[in-house]
């Protein structure tokens, strides 16, 4: 139930980021200055940290999506849906443990 709610919330968040991301990338068709000045905001401390949240939402949504598909298509999927949630969580923690220091290094490192 809560996994289902989280799947929806992360989905909506990613959707709105996608809209913004298409528009900011479209600025490469306007001028280098326009694109560079807008992309500079992605490199600020606050947005740089928020990107950790974005990547976390994407990874959760993706791996929980695989769990949903296994519930749909795997004969024992419904039976093991709870165990699969924990697998999703472990994969998520491992990937985030790799990403967070890397991102913090990029944002705050010399």
């Amino acid at each position, binding site marked *: 139930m809560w996994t289902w709610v989280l799947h929806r919330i992360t989905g909506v968040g990613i959707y709105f980021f996608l809209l913004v991301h*298409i528009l900011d*990338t*479209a600025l490469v068709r306007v001028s280098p200055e326009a694109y*560079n000045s807008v*992309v500079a905001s992605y490199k600020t401390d606050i947005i740089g940290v928020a990107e950790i949240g974005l990547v976390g939402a994407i990874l959760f949504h*993706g791996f929980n*999506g695989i769990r949903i598909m296994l519930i749909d298509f795997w004969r024992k999927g419904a039976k093991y849906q709870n165990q699969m949630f924990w697998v999703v969580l472990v994969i998520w923690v491992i990937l985030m443990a790799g990403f967070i220091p890397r991102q913090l290094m*990029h944002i705050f490192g010399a």
Partner: protein
Amino acid sequence: MAIVIEQPDAPRSRKGAQWEKRAWIFMRISGVILIFLIIGHLMVNIVLPERGVKAIDFAFVAGKWASPFWQVYDGLILWLALIHGTNGMRTLVNDYSEREWLRKALNVTLWVTAAALILLGTLVITTFDPCIDPNVHNYLPDLVCKG
């Protein structure tokens, strides 16, 4: 106004059922492809480069889109993610909107937005011209610019 809940076994038109089934299948197929495409996208753009997100600028994009591989790659993400996201939003609108006119208006808005952004994004990728940067030869030395 009382909320009317549809009978689960209410007959659905054959066309409507087909559409829902195709949308359901699309979500699963596009979802699997997007996991690979987007993890690759994140790795190549913000994880692996030495300076990560701080290295992204016009020259970075021009360097990538000099190769048809990344044009197709980014075009695929654009189409699949936007249709996947729009259809997901449609599911939420259908679940939570109580007024029929509002539900229809939101769904029309979602698909118009998706069509506009797919058109915009596809045009940006296919008509991108690195020569609008006067310093382009600093990072793409072999590029030939007209005029």
